[in-house]
């Protein structure tokens, strides 16, 4: 199964709970090597985002993220895992799970309408 792994910051996080957190380079190397991480990248902050909507054939642009208040997305990865347990294991090894948070979204399979 494929999962979109959204890597996010956590505004609630209080420093000092990440003793022993893994290194992100190691994580990438490890997951790429296992064929689990198909691709991924860091993304620029919300200030650099542009939101696109088409309404009545008109392209409407908004400077910034869709949700005004918070956008904590710092990056993303696409994972190929056997199941959610494996995806959770992979996510828990990512350093941002230690200081931020990670959301796992299963892909919508091609064969489903």
């Amino acid at each position, binding site marked *: *199964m494929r*999962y979109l792994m959204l890597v996010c910051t956590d505004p609630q996080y209080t420093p000092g709970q990440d003793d022993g957190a893994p290194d992100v380079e190691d994580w990438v190397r490890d997951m790429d090597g296992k064929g689990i991480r198909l691709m991924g990248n860091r993304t620029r902050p919300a200030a650099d985002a542009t939101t696109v909507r088409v309404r009545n054939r008109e392209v409407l642009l908004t400077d910034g993220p869709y949700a005004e208040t918070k956008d904590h997305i710092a990056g993303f990865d696409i994972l190929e*895992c*056997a*199941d*959610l*347990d494996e*995806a*959770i294991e992979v996510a828990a090894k990512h350093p941002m799970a230690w200081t931020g948070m990670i959301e*796992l979204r*299963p892909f919508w399979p091609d*064969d*489903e309408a």
Partner: protein
Amino acid sequence: MTGVQERIAELYADGWSRIVATMIRFTGGNWDLAEECAQDAFAQALLKWPATGVPDQPLAWLTTTARNRAIDRIRRASTEAAKLREAAAMDPPAPPYTSDSEIPDERLELMFTCCHPSLHLDAQVALTLRSLAGMSTADIARAFLVPERTMGQRIFRAKQKVAHAGIPFRVPPAHLLPDRLPAVLHVLYLLFNEGYGDPAKARLAHEAIRLSRVLAAMMPDEPEAHGMLALMLLHDVRRPTRIDAAGDLVTLEEQDRARWDKAQIADGVEVLERALRRRRPGPFQIQAAIAACHATAADAAATDWPQIAGLYAQLARIAPSRIVELNHAVAIGMAEGPLAALPLLDALAAGGELDGYYLLHATRADLLRRAGRPEPAGDSYRAALELAPTEPERRFLRSRLGRLAGLHSAASRDQGEPRRSPEPTPGSSQ
């Protein structure tokens, strides 16, 4: 004939979870199809066995029948998705149920497998009760105090997430078991309540106690697991005396305490004391302590209500819920009199969440009766009567209502027990 039916009922009780688990694996995680095929296998047994007799290995027969049904269903479905599922189901062949896990009981192991922490706790519990324990959606809804439709949707959504998110049906490794313990304890608790409330389902109570014992032995460092076992043991002693020969509810104070199993009480108290020594109190331990107050009182008059009220207050702090508040009010009513409890109950009623809960009205009725206000008491009994879920409970309320007419003095109290609460408290108004 009836012998065959009884045998099938037994097999259903003992084998349902195993067959469903096998089918969940066989269908590559299609829970709905798994349940449907298991259901169908039992229907086939009811149809065929009266003529053919019960096969030598009835569980194997049922499993094979369910499996054939699944293959049939998957073949007949014509969509691409179904073909993919078929491929998944056929290859590799589903392994027969085996495991090298550290859980020494298959049924318990399946509960831990079912309670995946990526689902909301309530969803884990409801799904396990439905799919694994074979409890009806209506019964589960009553246990959670929600409408049946709401519970149906909750179970549906849980199954959807299992399928869509790729939640595997896999026995968790030992180090992940404590994460899943709260959900498993709730499952056992609600199974026990089902068996406690209905004499026809007494075997559920026995099974829940058996599984709790296995669980407590398996997790010696988890005081709540021991608290749960103690709670069940101490409540279970009342099961034979809470309903009389005519099927009527007997109030706790009128129950024949001589018939309570003294050895079981001692066992329960010992298990509880061992748990409490770990100094990590939790909702189940506190409720077991409340149950111990009742079980060890020489008679109803000797009940230590102030202590029970204190325990409910502690419970309300660590596991707040409306049901706990209701129980606390009942204990205050016993410790300090109905006038002290009525304002608590008014506040609870004003919240509105328990409007559909018959014990709110029954408790209020009882307090009003004892406070010498028969008219509003009558109104509350009638409100309770409309909401009471079982016939013995309705008969009990009718008799109370009848007695109200010829108002009497006794300080006797009704005591329905909100055993269907999702909170770990089979005792309410004891």
